[in-house]
């Protein structure tokens, strides 16, 4: 087995690749949640066997809506901080903490819901949408942690860190938008 050295590339190419890649990743993430958006409207309009709300009166009052507001605020604040993290790394750590807080509150909320996945169409959409959103958020936060850890230890230069933070922010902003739509539909419209 022989080997051949990898040629050196201009740093701006990496930034360009990351930026375009993150735009496309955001589009893919959006279309993933479009499936849940469609499920929400489709099942709600159909109200099959009158079971959209699990056949119970009063299901429209979400039992843990305060937690929903906290999650939304945490995610949106995290998005706002992440967008500044390219120039101030402390903002990145703040974004990470707020994102993790949102995930934590979501996990706590599941324990206090008062309904389960089998309680009608709304319950299915609510739990499916929020659970996969939480998984996506966790994945994104791992990405942010990796960027911040590399920057803290000096393994990545400021240009590269800035490019990576900008890419992360794009995807994180898209997830913030998904959370906003989810809040409007799952808590306000129901």
């Amino acid at each position: 087995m022989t080997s051949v050295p990898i040629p050196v590339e201009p740093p701006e190419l990496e930034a360009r690749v990351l930026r375009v890649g993150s735009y496309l990743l955001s589009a893919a993430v959006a279309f993933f949640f479009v499936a849940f958006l469609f499920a929400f409207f489709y099942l709600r309009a159909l109200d099959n066997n009158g079971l959209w709300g699990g056949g119970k009166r009063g299901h429209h009052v979400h039992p843990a809506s305060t937690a929903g507001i906290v999650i939304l605020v945490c995610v949106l604040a995290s998005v706002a901080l992440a967008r500044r993290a390219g120039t101030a790394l402390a903002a990145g750590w703040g974004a990470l903490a707020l994102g993790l807080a949102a995930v934590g509150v979501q996990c706590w909320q599941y324990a206090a819901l008062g309904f389960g996945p089998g309680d009608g169409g709304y319950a299915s959409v609510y739990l499916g949408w929020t659970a996969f959103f939480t998984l996506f958020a966790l994945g994104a936060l791992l990405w942010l942690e990796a960027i911040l850890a590399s920057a803290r230890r000096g393994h990545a230069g400021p240009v590269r860190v800035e490019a990576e933070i900008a890419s992360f922010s794009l995807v994180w902003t898209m997830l913030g938008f998904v959370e906003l739509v989810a809040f409007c539909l799952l808590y306000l419209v129901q």
Partner: protein
Amino acid sequence: MTATALPAASRRRLGGWIGFNLLTAIALGIGGFFLGAYIGGVLAAGKDYLVGTDQNDIGVFMGFLFATVGWLAGLGFFNYPVRRLAGRPASLPLEESTGVSRFFRLSTDHKVVGIQYFFGVGAFFLVGGLNAMLIRTELLTPNERFVPAGQYLSLVGLHGTMMIMMTSAFILGPFGNYLVPLMIGSRRMAFPRVESLTFWLTPLAGLVLLSAIAWNGFPTGWTGYAPLADEARAGMDAYIWSFMLIGLSITLNGLNLLTTILTMRAPGLTWGRLPIFVWGALSTSVLMVLAAPVLIATLLMELTDRSANTSFYLASGGGSPYLYENLFWFFGHPEVYILALPGFGIVLEILPVFARKPLWGYRLAVAGMLGVTFLSFFVWQHHLFVSGINSTLRPFYMLTTELISIPTGFIFLNAIGTLWQGRIRFTVPMLFALAFFFNFLIGGLSGIFLSDVPSDVTTHGSFFVIAHFHYTIMGGLVFAFFAATYYWLPKMTGIALNERLARIQFWTAFVFFNLTFFPLFAAGFLDMPRRVSTYAPSLQTLNDFVSASAFALGGSMLLFLGNLIWSLAFARVPAAENPWRSRGLEWQLPTPVPVHNFDRIPVITGSPYDYGVEGAAPVATFDAAAAAATA
């Protein structure tokens, strides 16, 4: 990801059988499955909705999840992210190896990944083909004889799913990954690790799908319709997981190809000079990035219905099976064009070379591909014409489906214009390209019957549909695949394929393909239903003829396999650098292509299709100063 600032010392090489390679992946994958199944068993204990059932879908899904993690860990896919999470220097290589072992592990060389795809996907394609032979064996007699009805249904499902899954990666996997960087003058793909991941998810998906056999298969066919999918046994879990893996692979492959084309083109490679195959890859990638995530979400809903007691698709719990049909076909119809568009790119790439004329209507071809891409998102409900959709929706989807034949027709105009008064050389790639147009025309014309509501109502669910989609997918995509293989494989491997065997394979494939599938239109009109192993005795002669032709078609595929093995392993005749006298940038490189493609990034100075044009500029120069002087 470049490795310019990172040390090579951290790269782990344990040598021999130990290390991050296929063998470790298999070991960890199998171990992971049993560990996951055990944990799933513990988690499932006491769940009300599982009590009284004799299967545990939580255990099966956890097994697949852990098997996937083990498989990827064994190949070394977690080394890079784990080191970065820990804030340590990433274990990126500073050099690419050239030994045979690189084909059995994570490789960041796009050419290695292309060849991995070629053989990896090809192996599963053969398995799908064997299933087809078993199906035709059963259909030799009108009564249940060779396999029981339930197993026949599983066989059909396995064949369909394997073929759709693998053909999704059939052209862009090997040829997209191998050729796009070469054609645009790049040294690599935008995300080399992601590229490798897209390949290694594919064999895993194939193996998971095959594991359905251990659970007696699945009864839904390749579409996995609810509510049957909710009621099916654990083989359905294998279907869901494997299709999800393919969905992930398709999404990431599209993202990678699109990023590469958008950001890494060589200087001078304007949109008007982009090779038409790259346009095909670009338009397909758009569909892959946008449609495949919907498939993943759709299957995740099915997964939670089966394991977590949700009711997305269960009418008895407030869900609806129509939700599945809508979501599935929102992916499923663009998927048809994920299969077809790369084929368009290949045949339009090949025609000018062997007609020795410029590609006629380059912009028309691009418009056709982009038009198909756009319209393919607005046609999905034609699959639901007979499923009880609101009748007022039918005309809209009938119209959009018929509209899509217009941009598809552009591709035929391009072909006719290019061939007109050309000096045609009937080489093997050219023969396959021409056969593509013949087959795809029949596939396309028969598609009009299915887009039209009244005729769809009478033909839906019959063998007419089978004939139609085999003409488009096998007659189109697979013939395009063979055209590409005979055209580019000498460049990819440095070895020439046997010409005589190739010609015999073409004629047997073309003749027996048509003898197999054309009579199925008649079988459909005579009401022979899909997915059922019994049929009216009066149709036996027709079916015996089709089965005999299908076996001969299978023999033609074996001939290709024989040619491949003979040429690559035994004869080993070195291929010429540019045997077709092509102007394509990839043909200006030495054979085999060097590890990093270009010593110097080329400057594109002309169109790749200026055949027979007097005073045409060379397609590229590798000397930047000379290019500047010319400009």
